[in-house]
């Protein structure tokens, strides 16, 4: 079986994907997602890990009908740029929402979902997606 997903990458990238783990500059305080090695604001390499809240609102979105290989099951996919409480923006799919109910400003929260599978035999990719906050209670 030809594996398409890299095993080390799946392992190495898990915390930013599962937890919205970001980096924070100890020097100037800027929060970076995806996490960085060098702060792009002040140039410092003194960074620490931090977790983002996962709560935010939709800044812009698209509904993708023409999908890449391996994503037909999920189509149409709504992708959004979500601005979190902390001011950090994240690009991720929305889930549990009908495309016609998405609008700029929609309040959302992060949930862990399946992103894709490497066929029936390979690894499963899990990561943060966002769903509307009015969903439960």
């Amino acid at each position, binding site marked *: 079986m030809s594996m398409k997903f890299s095993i080390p990458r799946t392992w190495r990238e*898990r*915390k930013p994907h*599962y*937890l919205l783990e970001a980096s924070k500059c100890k020097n100037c305080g800027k929060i970076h997602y995806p996490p960085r090695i060098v702060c792009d604001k002040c140039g410092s390499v003194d960074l620490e890990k931090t*977790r983002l809240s996962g709560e935010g609102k939709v800044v812009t979105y698209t509904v993708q009908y023409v999908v890449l290989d391996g994503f*037909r*099951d*999920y189509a149409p996919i709504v992708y959004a740029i979500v601005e979190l409480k902390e001011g950090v923006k994240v690009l991720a799919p929305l*889930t*549990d929402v009908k495309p016609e109910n998405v609008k700029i400003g929609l309040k959302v929260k992060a*949930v*862990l*979902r*399946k*992103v894709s599978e490497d*066929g029936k035999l390979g690894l*499963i990719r*899990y990561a943060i*997606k966002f769903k509307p906050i009015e*969903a*439960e*209670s």
Partner: protein
Amino acid sequence: MKPVNDVGIAGWGVYIPKYRVKCSEIEATWGFQPGYCRSLNVYEKAVAGIDEDTITIGYEAAKNAILRAKIIPSEVGAIYVGTESKPYAVKPSITVIGEALGITPRTLGADLEFACRAASEAIEASIGLIASNMIKYSLVIGADTAQASPGDVLEFTASSGGAAYVLARRGNNTVAYFEGSFSYITDTPDFWRRPRSPYPHHGEQFTGDPAYFHHIISAVKGLMESLGLKPSDFDYAVFHQPNGRFPLKVASELGFSKDKVLPGLITPYIGNTYNGSALIGLAAVLEQAKPGQRILLAPFGSGSGSDAYSIVVEDGIEERVDLAPKVKDFLENKEYINYLLYAKFNGLIEKFEM
């Protein structure tokens, strides 16, 4: 069984996917007599969305339990998932959930299998770990995305959902405690799945008396005898609920009145969530129980085995109820889908990797 130190529930949480397929829809697809489901007392079942599985369901239920327990995830010393629908046959679900919640790496944990009672076994094991002071908190998750062969009667009830419990020493954040437990296990082949089979086999009527009823009755009787309790000492009775009929029947045989069973009988609205079944029922009861009340919890797993717990509710439980979404909220937040979408979500439509 009673541990040397009492152990209780610090938090509970459930997650039920929003999609529902009506039993009548399944009846019509496979040509069952209309109204067949009424004999099962199930109206509709919950279906996992295309991007959901036991791991994502377990994760959400666990998050809700942690919210109610008001603890930091890293304080959890053991994490268990009881399931019979693991995304990987070999590779634990608890590692993904544990990482995603911030519980790893300093923790115990494993995925357990014993059909629908695996999560209950994890509760028993956790009681031991906590009572012995090996760990402070245990997170036990029961979650499934149960599959049944299309066109088989099991398809009416096999559904998706999960519950999670944070357990701790009684007094350490707990809102209910285990007064005692009793387990009863025999080799009874009422329901099984060999590795290469996509769907389980079941023994139809055999799953009743020799399996479900015998083991639950034995466990509950054993519990009541050892604790010196009678049915009238309990305010609620929550049983494993493979359909909406069995729990009422076993309650009646044991001498528990119907009104004690109904608050925890959720299967008619969401189907049988397997490892979530009794535990979601328990959550519904905890969301209305008052301090001092006593709850009977009797999960059952095919193969077969049953546990019976006597749970006593403590002060402070009412303040925890609204800290996370309630069973009621999940029951109300639903969207109906037709059989076609249900088939797509459940992977029943075969695609080839072109």
